[in-house]
C-alpha cells in the first residue's frame, strides 16, 4: 500500500515537473534569448601583473605598499567613501609607531561635542576613533553623488568576487565605451553622470574615474605614482582593511596543518598496529 501511494506521488511530481520542462523547452526553442550588453562586454577582474605580496600560502604584507595605499585612500577615496570598521589605532599594524598613529589621527576631523556647551562640533580624531564618514547621513551622500551612495570600503575586497583584483581592475578599467557595443546595444550607452567600465557588473557606474593622471598622489617614499601603481596600492590597503588578520591567519595555518599532518601519520601507524592481529594476513602460497 505504502509503495503504491509512493509510486503515485512520485509519478505525480514527475508529471508536473516534466510538464514544466516541456513548456520551458518550447519557450527556449521558439523564443530567442536576447544577448545582453553585460554578458557580451563584462570582463573578469585581474590583478597587477606581478601579483600581490599577500598572495599565496606564504604571502606577507608589503608595509610600504599598505602605507602608500593608505595615502591614496586618504587623499582620493576618502572624499566620498567611509571606512567605518577601521579605527586609527589599527594603523599601527601598517608599521606606524604609536606617536605616528596619534599624529595621523589628529589630521582627521570627527564629529564630537563641545565639552563645555554640549553643542555638536568637529574635533581632532584620537587613535580610538573610527574613520569618519565624509557625509553626515545617507541622504546627504546620495544628494552629493547623483543619487548613488558611495559604499563603505572597509569590506570591499571581501564583498566582491576576487576583491583585490576587482578594485585594481575597476580603478584602471575606465575607458570609452567600445564602438561595437554602442552599435549593438544603444541602450547600454552610459547615461548622464555614468561612466563606462567593463569590470563593473552592469558596465556603467556612477563613480567618476578617481585616479585620472600619473602623479596625482605624491608618495612620501618616492615611488613613481602611476595610475596602475596607485590602484594596486589602494587595492592592497583595502585588502588589509577587509581582513587585518589575513597574514596572521596564513601564518597560523601552516604550523596547524604541519601538526595535523604529523598527528595523522602517527594515527595511521597506531591504527595499523591496533589492527595487526585481526587483519587477514596475505597468504604466500
Amino acid at each position, binding site marked *: 500500500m*505504502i*509503495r503504491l501511494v*509512493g*509510486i503515485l*506521488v*512520485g*509519478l505525480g*511530481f*514527475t508529471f*508536473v*515537473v*516534466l*510538464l*514544466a*520542462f516541456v*513548456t*520551458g*523547452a518550447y519557450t*527556449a526553442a521558439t523564443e530567442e*534569448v536576447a544577448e545582453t550588453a553585460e554578458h557580451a562586454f563584462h570582463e573578469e577582474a585581474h590583478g597587477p601583473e606581478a601579483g600581490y605580496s599577500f598572495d599565496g*600560502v606564504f604571502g606577507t604584507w608589503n608595509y610600504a605598499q599598505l602605507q602608500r595605499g593608505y595615502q591614496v585612500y586618504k587623499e582620493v577615496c576618502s572624499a566620498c567613501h567611509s571606512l567605518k*570598521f577601521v579605527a586609527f589605532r*589599527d594603523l599601527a599594524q601598517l608599521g606606524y609607531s604609536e606617536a605616528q598613529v596619534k599624529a595621523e589621527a589628529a589630521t582627521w576631523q570627527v564629529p564630537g561635542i563641545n565639552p563645555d556647551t554640549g553643542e555638536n562640533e568637529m574635533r581632532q580624531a584620537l587613535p580610538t576613533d573610527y574613520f569618519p564618514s565624509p557625509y553626515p547621513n545617507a541622504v546627504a551622500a546620495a544628494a552629493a553623488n547623483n543619487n548613488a551612495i558611495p*559604499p563603505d570600503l*572597509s*569590506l570591499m575586497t*571581501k*564583498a*566582491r*568576487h576576487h*576583491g583585490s583584483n576587482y578594485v585594481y581592475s575597476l580603478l584602471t578599467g575606465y575607458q570609452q565605451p567600445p564602438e561595437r557595443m554602442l552599435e549593438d546595444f544603444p541602450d547600454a550607452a552610459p547615461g548622464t553622470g555614468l561612466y563606462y567600465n567593463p569590470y563593473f*557588473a552592469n558596465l556603467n557606474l556612477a563613480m567618476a574615474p578617481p585616479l585620472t593622471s600619473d602623479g596625482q598622489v605624491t608618495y612620501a617614499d618616492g615611488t613613481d605614482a602611476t595610475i596602475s601603481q596607485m590602484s594596486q596600492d589602494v587595492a592592497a590597503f583595502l585588502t588589509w582593511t*577587509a*581582513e*587585518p*588578520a589575513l597574514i596572521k*591567519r*596564513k601564518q*597560523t*595555518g*601552516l604550523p*596547524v*596543518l604541519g601538526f*595535523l*599532518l604529523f*598527528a*595523522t601519520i602517527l*594515527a*595511521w601507524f*597506531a*591504527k595499523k598496529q*591496533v*589492527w595487526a592481529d*585481526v587483519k*587477514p594476513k596475505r597468504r604466500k602460497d
Partner: protein
Amino acid sequence: MSFPWAKEYTPQNGVMKFFDEKLPLPRFIYNAVGAGYPVPRNLSYFWNFGVLAGFFLVLQIVTGVVLAMHYAANTQVAFATVEHIARDVNWGWLMRYTHANGASFFFVVIYIHIFRGLFYASYKPPREMIWLIGVVIFLLMMATAFMGYVLPWGQMSFWGAQVITGLFEAIPLVGPPLKTWLLGGFAPDNAALNRFFSLHFLLPFVIAGAVILHIWALHIPGSSNPTGVEVKTESDTVPFHPYYTAKDGFGLGVALIVFMTFVFFLPNTLGHPDNYIEANPLSTPAHIVPEWYFYPFYAILRAFTFDFILPAKLWGVLAMFSAILVWFFLPWLDKGPVRSGHYRPLFRKFFWFGLIPVMAVLFYCGGAPAEEPYVMISQIATAYYFLHFLVILPIISSIERPDPLPFSITEAVLGSDKKAVLGENAEPVAT
C-alpha cells in the same frame, strides 16, 4: 542490547568503583563507545562519518557559544558585532571562520553519512528507527544552519530569510498570516533576527539530544556493515575500543587537515561575497542563493515553473519538502531482502549512474542563476530524483535477483569461517 560476548566493564580502582555503584557513567561510556560495544570487523572508512558528524556538532556548539558571547542580535549592530569579532576579539577571526566553515563541513560529512546509509540500505529492518531519527536530525540541521546564516545580517542573510520565509506564503489560506507570524513582522527585521538567534542557540542542543537517541537506537541491533550480513559470532566483531577509536582517529585527522585548509587558507570560498555587504531591504542582490548545502533542494524548488492546477510556487515548495520527507518512507519503499548495494546489481547501477550524478547536477543547478539551460537541466534531474526513490526503488527491490551473499562477516574478511559453520571447537581442515 549488544551481543552476549560484549566485554563487561570492571572498575579498575576505588574511585571508578565508587562511580560505578552510584552513577555508572563510566560503564555507560564503556558500553557506548568503548570496549563494551562489539562492532563488525569489516567496516570501511565510510563508517567513519558518524563519528565525524558528532565531532563537528561539538565543534559548532563550542565555537558557537564563544561567538554568542560577542555577538548582538539586533539589526542595528549585528553586522558590526560580527566585524568586531573578526577584528577586535582575540582569535575571533579563527572562531568565526571555524564556525562558518564548520557548518559547511558538518553538511559535507552528513551528506556522505546519509549516502552511505542509502547505498548500504542501512535504513532496512532492524535499523528503521536509527534512520528515522537521522532524517529528523538532518531537518533540524537545515533549520539551524538557515537561521545561523541570517545572524550576520548581510545581504544574503536578509534576502535568504526573505526567500525562505516567503515559501510559507505559498501555502493556501494560512500562508501569508503564517509567514507574518513566523517573522514577527511583514519582512525580516529585528523581531525575526532575535528569534532566529534564540532558536539558533537552542536547536543544536535539540540535535545533541536527537543524536543520543540516534546512538541509543543504533546500539539495539548494533552497527551495520558493508556486506549487510548480520553479525553471527564473536569472530565477526571487534570491540569498538581500541579498533574503531584508532581507525576513527586516523579518519578524524584526515578530515581535520581538509577542514583546516579551508579555515586558514580558503575561509570565504564556501560563502558568498554579498554577505559582506550589510543587509539593505531596498537593494536586492542580482542572484539570491542559499548556502551551498541547500543547493539540491533549492534546485528542486525552482524546477517547478508551470501552474498545473496548483500555482507553480506551491508545487515547488511541496516538492522541496517532499524531497526530504520521502527519506522517512525508505524502509518501507525498498523491500528487497538484501541490504548492501555490493550484492544488488540493479540497485547499484541506479545508485551510481542515476542518483549520484543527479544529486551532483542538482547541486550545480541550485547554485546557478535561474535561467536556461539550468532550469531545464534541474527539471530533468528533479524528475529522476522522485522517480528514483518513489518508483524505481520499490520496483527494483521487487524484481531484482541479488548476488550470493557471504555466509558471515568473518567469511567475507578471511575467505572462510569454519568455526561458524562447523561449531566452536572445529579443528582447521587442511585444504
